[in-house]
């Protein structure tokens, strides 16, 4: 159980790590939109631009490329499935051989579908590799700020997110402990799915009760320090914008603009 790590944050002091998380999230979304916009006659160039972009981002983030590629492993089934479906059901273009059911265009299309998914996942995992969960929560708070206008409790939402993230390792540790305690009492966690589910009850109930106890304690601790998510609350770590954010903004903007221009027609 101890081997389970949540998220995949790769600590470093790189350019990308030091970016403002809100900007990073925003630019990742822009990049993903860019990847999906690639189409038209010049799609080769569009995809090439995206690949180059992701590689440059990986290098400047000083994250080993295999860590980024590792995230693809989890979705490889999904990638293959969409590629294979494309091969079999796309009837455009000319058959590769006489009376064959696989066409040249289908083959190319399936390749690009796979590439598209891989590129999107690489971008997203680059975000989680370079941004700690707490930073992501902070960034989300900033990005959701406009929702305050419609009375959405953005600050509370972000707080819930960071508390949840904070307690994941604690809960894993607790789970490990309870499993061991029940194993010492002869519980077995092997066997069929039904047996396994039943065996989890003596683990889940103490875990649930423990979480309520913790939540209570945390609420008391916050109360006793007069916590309130009021308007005038200031931040301990202020995250301003730096030249890094400006440069990244321009490069990503350039990528998206380039992709749109390469398409020939503006789809937006």
């Amino acid at each position, binding site marked *: 159980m101890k081997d389970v790590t949540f998220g995949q944050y790769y600590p470093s002091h790189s350019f990308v790590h030091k970016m403002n998380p809100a900007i990073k999230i925003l630019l990742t979304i822009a990049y993903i939109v860019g990847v999906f916009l690639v189409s038209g006659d010049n799609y080769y160039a569009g995809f090439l631009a995206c690949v180059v972009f992701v590689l440059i981002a990986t290098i400047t983030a000083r994250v080993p490329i295999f860590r980024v590629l590792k995230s693809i492993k989890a979705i490889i089934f999904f990638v293959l499935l969409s590629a294979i479906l494309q091969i079999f059901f796309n009837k455009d273009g000319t058959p590769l051989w006489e009376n064959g059911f696989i066409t040249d265009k289908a083959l190319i299309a399936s390749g690009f579908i796979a590439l598209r998914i891989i590129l999107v996942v690489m971008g997203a995992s680059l975000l989680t590799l370079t941004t700690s969960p707490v930073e992501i929560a902070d960034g989300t708070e900033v990005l959701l700020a406009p929702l305050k206008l419609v009375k959405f409790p953005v600050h509370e939402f972000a707080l819930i997110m960071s508390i949840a993230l904070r307690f994941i390792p604690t809960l894993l540790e607790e789970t490990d402990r309870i499993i*061991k305690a029940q194993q*010492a009492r002869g519980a077995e966690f092997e066997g069929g799915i039904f047996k396994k589910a039943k065996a989890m009850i003596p683990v889940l109930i103490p875990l649930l009760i423990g979480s309520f106890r913790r939540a209570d304690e945390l609420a008391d601790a916050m109360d006793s320090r007069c916590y309130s998510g009021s308007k005038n609350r200031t931040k301990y770590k202020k995250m301003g914008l730096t030249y890094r954010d400006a440069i990244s903004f321009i490069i990503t903007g350039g990528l998206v603009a380039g992709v749109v221009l390469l398409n020939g027609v503006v789809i937006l």
Partner: protein
Amino acid sequence: MQVKIENLSYSYGSKKLKVKAVNDICLEIKEGEFFGVVGHTGSGKSTLIQHLNGLIKVQKDSGKVIVGEYDLTDKKCDFKGLRAKVGMVFQYPEYQLFAETVFEDVKFGLKNFYPNLTEKEMEERIKKAVETVGLDYEKIKEKSPFELSGGQKRRVAIAGVIVSRPEVLVLDEPVAGLDPTGKREFVSLLHALHNDFVKTIIIVSHDMNLIAENCDRVAVLNKGNLVKVGTPKEVFMDKVKVEEWGLELPSTAYLTEKLREKGIEIDSDLTIKGFIDGYIRAKGGEK
């Protein structure tokens, strides 16, 4: 059941970032002993004792653990049978309670280990276990474990461990968070068990008074190494060493030390009774 540990090592983490928790430990705990394990936080105590019932498996080429007739390095070792014989009480055992009633919770371990017992036999053993830990069986059996007080919860949890009548009982910080009365009652419970079916008690604690007062022998761990094994007297004799290990002296050893500075030599086994007898002897008084 004798516990025999030979050259045991254990390391956490991946290949690159190995952290040795336990390093080349050889230790023998005889049947019938009241054995203490002490050490600074992170010295590997918990890792060591969790080997004893196979909760942590012996790593490859990292030594041997033999408990009675069970060879824990053997792939075919019957861990369930072993765990019935080696009971383990974790720190804050009350956090492992889960069933709707005290009866059901205590029954959990018994049913896992001995599914062939009849309902009547089970009830008898559950009753015995609940009464052994000092609770009123009839009053408590239908109650939810979650409506009990902290001390009662802990007793129920311990009943849930001893119900399978382990020969070896391993306890990790069992008195943490107990008030003085609770502590005293707990210690007498341990002695009662020790006189009954539990043959060997292995206790991990930061409470040196508890260790000095009750243990026949003590093992000291420091940074994963076994640095000393012996009677409390042998272990706590050297004040400088004890501080080096990140431990403190039990009160009796501390007083012995202070009185020695005043020129009074007391020879005792560091139990309170032994200390008083030693003091009277040193003063030349009659008993």
